[in-house]
């Protein structure tokens, strides 16, 4: 009893200054005070300097008329719209190119990554060369390569290259026929949703049956039949309500149809091909990271190589792959700001124009930073959910 009391009192026996708890509390408080006072100092100085330099400040400018046009507008926008709407258009363009880029980069990256582990010498070497070339060239140069090196040297609109299905390729971009859905086409959409729901149900029941009886069911082909077959049936039943709007030659350009501009195309290709090289390496590392014993054990159980990859290797590889994959997705989103070099109206370009037309540099840069921060946090959040579902569930 007595010895315990002595032990308990020992730390506070020294002076107040030597108490580790009080020390850490003191320094933490000091850092917080320093941090907040420097933030306050900077904000205060910005406001004071803006006033001293007679520069208007605040976010009121967002409600004024923008006055300039934007080439790609996913939502209705004219020069009469507000600066705020212009920024939203820019943000949407960034999201469009980022999402399309992420999908394309993932597909290409997984293909190349698996290709690097192929038994086939030629495929393996081609994939290695791809990775070494694309990950060692700065993304801006890749963008210029596609924009100035590939798309700009295509023929002028009047000498467009004719492609199958009434599509055209020229230096102004890629023109496709646009599908125009007529009356009754809602039925096709409904059929598609119904097909997906039924396929999910079939897969669910098949899994239950396999667990209970061990019998397998051809889930894949049934799902394909449901998802593709039902909409096709609906299409035929509703009297084929589909026409195409083909691009046509006019005075200056091709008009009509669906037009993919070279700025978007080169940015998308550059970003996804660049990021795909990194994703390929991540995928390769992930697959290599699964111990060989796992696939040997699966083989010993009598599984064939397809199911081994699908059921044993990839689920374990995904646990290694997803965290670095998230970083690549974030990089791709942020690299999309290089769009400014080729004139794709993404958030950076649009906010830059707004910043210049209004002169609100501090506010403009602040909006850009917040927008990219939110985009990145949302991407991380989604990927964290995916990661949590993939993580090892210990039973």
């Amino acid at each position, binding site marked *: 009893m007595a010895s315990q009391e002595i032990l308990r009192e020992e730390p506070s026996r020294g002076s107040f200054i030597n108490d580790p708890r009080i020390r850490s509390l003191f320094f933490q408080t000091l850092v917080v005070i320093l941090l907040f006072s420097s933030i306050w100092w*900077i*904000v*205060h*100085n*910005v406001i*004071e*300097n*803006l006033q*001293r*330099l*007679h*520069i*208007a400040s605040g976010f009121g400018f967002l409600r004024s008329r923008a*006055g*300039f*046009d*934007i*080439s790609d507008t996913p939502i209705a926008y*004219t*020069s*009469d719209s507000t600066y705020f709407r212009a920024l939203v258009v820019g943000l949407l363009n960034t999201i469009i190119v980022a999402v399309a880029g992420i999908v394309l980069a993932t597909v290409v990256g997984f293909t190349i990554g698996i290709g690097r582990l192929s038994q086939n010498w030629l495929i393996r070497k081609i994939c290695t060369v791809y990775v070494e070339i694309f990950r060692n060239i700065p993304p801006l140069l890749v963008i210029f390569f596609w924009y*100035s090196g590939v798309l*700009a040297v295509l023929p*002028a609109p*009047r000498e467009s290259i004719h492609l199958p299905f009434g599509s055209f390729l020229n*230096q*102004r971009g890629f023109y496709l026929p646009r599908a125009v859905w007529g009356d009754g086409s809602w039925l096709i959409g409904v059929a598609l949703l119904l097909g997906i729901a039924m396929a999910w149900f079939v897969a669910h029941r098949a899994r239950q049956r396999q667990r209970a009886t061990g019998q397998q069911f051809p889930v894949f082909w049934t799902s394909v039949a449901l998802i593709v077959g039902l909409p096709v049936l609906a299409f035929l039943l509703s009297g084929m309500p589909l026409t195409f709007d083909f691009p046509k030659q*006019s*005075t*200056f*350009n091709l*008009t009509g149809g669906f037009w993919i501009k*070279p*700025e978007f195309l080169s940015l998308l290709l550059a970003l996804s091909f660049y990021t795909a090289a990194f994703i390929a390496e991540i995928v390769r590392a992930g697959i290599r990271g699964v111990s060989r014993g796992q696939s040997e054990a699966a083989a010993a159980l009598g599984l064939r190589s397809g199911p081994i990859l699908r059921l044993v290797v990839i689920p374990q590889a995904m646990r290694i792959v997803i965290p670095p994959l998230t970083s690549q997705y974030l990089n791709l989103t942020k690299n999309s*700001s*290089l769009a*400014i*070099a*080729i*004139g794709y*109206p993404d958030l*950076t*370009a649009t906010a*830059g*124009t707004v*910043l*210049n*037309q*209004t*002169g609100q*540099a*501090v506010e*403009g*840069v*602040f909006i*850009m930073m917040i927008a990219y921060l939110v985009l990145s946090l949302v991407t991380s959040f989604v990927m964290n959910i995916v990661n949590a579902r993939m993580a090892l569930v210990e039973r």
Partner: protein
Amino acid sequence: MKHIAIGILGAAALGFMASAASAGTLDTVKQKGFIQCGVSTGLAGFSAPDDKGDWKGIDADFCRAVAAAVFGDGTKVKFTPLSAKERFTALQSGEIDILSRNTTWTSNRDSALGLDFVGVTYYDGQGFMINAKKLPGVNSALQLSGAAVCVQSGTTTELNLADYFKKNKMEYNPVVFEKLEEVNAAYDAGRCDAYTTDQSGLYGIRLTLSAPADHVVLPEIISKEPLGPAVRQGDDQWAHIARWTYFALLNAEEAGVTQANVDEMKTSTDPNIQRLLGTEPDGKYGADLGLSNDFVVNIVKAVGNYGEMFERNVGSGSPLKIARGINALWTKGGLQYGPPIR
């Protein structure tokens, strides 16, 4: 990309600048021994480096004129090339002392952006250029409906373009780049049907294209573009120095004072010329501005008078061969008019 950097730097500079009132620009400039002058990244006739790397053009020469007024030496200038987007932040944050970069004087820039325009060194207007070989039969901007138009972002040009097509109920497809070189390259490669900027600029740009003879400037002028230098708002002394440098250039031309005859003009007995050149006994018009009394002599020795500056850079003495037109002196039917030095 770079404008973001400047934007952030500008924002940071605003944050870290000492909040105490800083010294006047004249004192700062005298202390460092040169004027930091913001120019374009290369626009023939206005500000563009020649094959030796010297900046040539009306806008570059205006900065030399201010340097001559302040230091008596027109070479005490350092040039900062700026894109359209970077220019105002560079001036606001104090990175440059004067912005002389084919910049249009507008009410918004004069008020909300914290700038103070000095005068109009070149009266311009916006026009269109097309490739006549590829587009035969187009001889008016009103035929451009449906065209892809190349334009530099962050300019009044971009706004006038939107207004013009809207007013005439025409469609167009803007192809917007941040840097002049990017716009030039895209137009030259055929990405756009038409190029729009100030007409003087179009003539200058046409010279740099791969086949200048194929391109024509359409007759329409769709806007007023008074181009002039600007300084920071709130420093009256510096603004007066820049403004009276400009007026001195005009007055020298009006009085017939040229680079060649300025020294013999100093002996003139014409009181008007005496006041201009600071030879009037007891005159201290220069000293009142914070300069030497013979500042006009220094200016004219460095760059000549306004007319000489014009002809050398954009007029008959240059490849651009632009006529004086409305940029002639008021005495010859133009708009250039210098208030008297007295």
